[in-house]
């Protein structure tokens, strides 16, 4: 412990926080030969030597070097590790484009009911009616929210939804005897969009952004032709603004014979206000771990259901959840595998059901009005914080990238701060950690220099937004006096700034 004694009443001088003093030790390093946690039931059958059951050349010689630790040690290890994470239940987490909204504990409770958690995916549908009904009702709810009638819950996350959507696009065109080769994406698109395009065998063509933050319609016109399979849009886009020309864009795209794809990561801005289907989109993916409150889990699990228009429906992945009515009008749910034009499976079994339970519970809790209100408040919070950051130092050093009312998020540029104060967006982000805030998304979208992408979400209190704005101001004030403070931040986190370059140069990615 690096504390020097001092007379009571005066604070001690410390060079490390208690957490910093506690060095990282892995569970493997805590292993002691002979220790164990698990006691297994005995087999209750003859203890035949394994070699008599399986030829020895197919057997393992040396056991895997898993840790040897007792249960109390495991619990302490992971409890202590957990405290080295910043989480949503600790403080403000305005990570742009990620919709870090509160994760209701009710959803965890219902997902854990044995009828859900212990349900085998291969259970006969007649014995999984509750699960299939829930999936069917979630599909219907998402269809209503997206304004597109047909939903597949299968994709495991947004990026898999994108890939599914692009494979649907391919199947749709092929069905028409066409084989376009290009997919248009705005330069503001999230990285998963172009990556998915390539994996779907298409060529990415970038479309420029106009001064209003929307798609540059002229550029679009110049690039759209019958070799274009689809245009992928996020609307509101990653600049947090709604594309005012969406109607014109949709008709341009449709006239060319292409489909319009909606990246639903930003759906939290418009629930109950406007629907992608009504804007002319043919395919939408929804991130249940964003707008629909599935916890982010430190990087998943999530789910990326897709909603599509009639003309795309025949190609949806299989199996699909379907409803039939018995003669006495009683609904029975089933899995339909008999879909000849389907693109097939994107993954195993029926998708991330546990996520469906949570999101359906969320939809039931809020209801239609509640979802609409959530979007309204998300937009209110974003515009309020944007306003607060337009004042004083923030206004001077961190101008908003496209100055108009934003939707649920907005993007600032740290360029003037870098120029005038000599601290980068990264430095600001790291210094925010010392103030107990998770930084916004940084350096994205790419077309904004030194970008800071801020999404406050509806579940944050106004005081929290004010505290965040004040912290930004304090940091800029500090930087005016001494930029080194931010450049060397953070100071109080479990570890300080980490050497990422070194990590990549000599990768150490497992315990040796």
């Amino acid at each position, binding site marked *: 412990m690096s504390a020097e004694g001092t007379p009571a009443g005066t604070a001690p001088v410390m060079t490390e926080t208690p957490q910093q003093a506690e060095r990282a030790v*892995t569970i493997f390093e805590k292993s002691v030969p002979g220790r*164990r*946690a*698990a006691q297994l039931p005995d087999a209750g*059958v*003859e203890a035949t030597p*394994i070699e008599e059951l399986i030829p020895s050349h197919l057997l*393992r010689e040396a*056991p*895997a070097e898993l*840790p*040897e*630790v007792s249960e109390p040690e495991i619990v302490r290890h992971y409890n202590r*590790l*957990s405290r080295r*994470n910043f989480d949503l239940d600790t403080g403000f*987490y305005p*990570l742009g484009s990620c919709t870090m909204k509160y994760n209701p504990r009710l959803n965890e409770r219902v997902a854990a009911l*044995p*009828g859900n958690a212990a*349900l085998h995916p*291969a259970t006969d549908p007649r014995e999984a*009616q*509750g699960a299939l*009904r829930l999936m069917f009702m979630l599909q219907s*709810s998402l269809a*209503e929210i997206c304004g597109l009638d047909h939903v597949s819950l299968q994709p495991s996350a947004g*990026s898999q939804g994108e890939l599914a959507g692009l*494979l649907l696009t391919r199947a749709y065109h092929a069905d028409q005897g066409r084989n376009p080769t290009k997919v248009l994406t705005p330069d503001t698109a999230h*990285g*998963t969009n172009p*990556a998915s395009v390539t994996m779907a*065998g298409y060529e990415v063509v970038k479309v420029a952004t106009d001064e209003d933050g929307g798609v540059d319609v002229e550029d679009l016109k110049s690039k759209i032709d019958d070799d274009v399979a689809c245009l992928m849009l996020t609307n509101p886009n990653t600049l947090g603004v709604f594309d005012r020309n969406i*109607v014109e864009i949709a008709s341009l795209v449709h006239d060319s014979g292409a489909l319009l794809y909606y990246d639903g990561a930003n759906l939290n801005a418009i629930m109950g*206000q406007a629907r992608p289907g009504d804007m002319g989109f043919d395919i939408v993916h929804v991130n249940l771990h964003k707008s629909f409150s599935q916890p982010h*889990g*430190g*990087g*998943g699990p999530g789910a990326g259901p897709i909603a599509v228009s009639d003309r795309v429906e025949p190609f949806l992945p299989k199996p699909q959840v379907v409803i039939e009515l018995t003669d006495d009008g009683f609904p*029975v749910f089933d899995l339909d595998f008999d879909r000849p034009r389907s693109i*097939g499976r994107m*993954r195993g079994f029926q998708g*991330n059901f*546990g996520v469906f339970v949570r999101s359906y519970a969320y939809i039931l809790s*809020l209801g*239609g*009005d509640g*979802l609409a209100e*959530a979007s309204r408040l998300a937009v*209110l919070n974003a*515009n309020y914080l944007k306003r607060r950051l337009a004042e004083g130092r923030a206004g001077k050093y961190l101008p908003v990238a496209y100055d108009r009312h934003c939707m649920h998020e907005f993007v600032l540029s740290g360029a003037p701060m870098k120029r005038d104060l000599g601290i980068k967006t990264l430095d600001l982000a790291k210094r925010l950690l010392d103030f107990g805030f*998770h930084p916004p998304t940084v350096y994205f979208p790419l077309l904004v220099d030194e970008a800071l992408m801020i999404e406050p979400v509806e579940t944050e*209190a106004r005081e929290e937004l004010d505290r965040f704005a004040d912290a930004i101001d304090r940091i800029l004030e500090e930087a005016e006096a001494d930029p080194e403070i931010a450049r*060397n931040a953070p100071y109080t986190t479990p*570890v*300080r700034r*980490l050497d*990422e370059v070194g990590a*990549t140069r000599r990768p150490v990615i*497992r315990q040796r």
Partner: protein
Amino acid sequence: MAGYAPITPADQAEMLGAIGVDSIDELFEQIPPEVRLGRPLDLDDGLSETEVFDQLDWLARQNVSTAEVSSFLGAGMYDHYVPAIVDAITSRSEFLTPYTPYQPEVSQGGLQVMFEFQTAMSELTGLPVSNAGLYEGPSAAASAAYLAMGATGRTGLVASRGLHPHSRETLATHAVGFGATLTEVGLEGGLTDGTELEAAITDDTAAVFLQNPNFLGSVEDVAALGEAAKAKGALLIVAVDPMTLGILRPPGECGADIAFGEGQPLGNRLDFGGPSFGFFCADEKYIRKMPGRIAGETTDADGRRGFVLTLQTREQHIRREKATSNICTAQALNALAAMVHLSWLGKRGFVELGELLARRTAFARDRIGGLDGFELLHEAPVVREFAVRSTRVPVDRLLARTNEPVDAGTHAHEAGIQVYPLGRDYPEYEDSFLVAITEKRDPVEIEGLAEDLESTLAELEATAVEGAR
């Protein structure tokens, strides 16, 4: 005020004032009127917590879960006992609620877990490189194909029919986008047909997919089968059931270039099929071609040990259209569950569990294979799952269910026999089904299955005779 939001009408008024607008609607004016939804969503109004709980509890009771009946369903996901510490740890908000560790200084918990997980999976598979997890097993097969095609510049994919049908279907779906052609190789006596395999591999074969144990439960001789792939310079990609790796030779020691699999058996509940996770391990030379997140060790400004997301230049947020994969949000929490479960099992427990499975499965296989009206589909060695042929009645009649919806409380009685019929995936084995064993299925329950099969068969034959009269 709704949706867990802390914003009061008074807050709203002041905030609108600060923004300088009269109403929230004004902020939505940027949406062209013709695409505004001029009506409330056609969904029910919000409910109180107790009402939502009741509705979902009612739904959950319509399901016949493994908590209610003794289930021998497997086919890639298994009813293992998940120790209580797994829930205790994964439910901590510090693990449950953050996102991907973009800010490593405040994400050391999650990053170190990834590093530990990578180590554990590398140990299990015997391959030096592991990522921090993918969505689930079958889509990991697609990621493996994508890597192989990039690495070899070839377009052919060859897969044994022993590979999980969902993996083969997922490969087929993705192949369209990848521009790959998929060839299947049949099974002989429960095992991949070596000659057919060799014949199927060409100079354009990017990868050969095997599964061990294969979908019929058989332990394949991966090393032997793999030689044909090696000979033609194709990658050997092996799907494995992690719970068998306590006793089976790891793919890394059988010449596999890539090993992947469904992670559910490790600490993840069944959840009707997800969320779980996929694991993905490879040879050193593919380290910069891996899909997904990878955590690496480094030091901080003061020299402290720390962990970061590394080799990110592979990933979509940097490489965009040139990325090695499009994956972003993955299954971090599920990988944590696996790591806790593996720590709990430990070096010895993990082996003991493999042995327990093999022994109970041998017992069950003898017992059920010996029933009249039933025989083993194949004699190949197995670890935890085996295939049985019904010789006298069709499988669908054997497993017939009433069409009555399940009624809460009483479904235990209505439930049918919980085994996996092979017909849909393997028309050639339409008369067979799979039986899976875990440490939760003790000899008494196995005996119960044998009796259910016997008595059901007897009933069916009795009614048949009746019918004949």
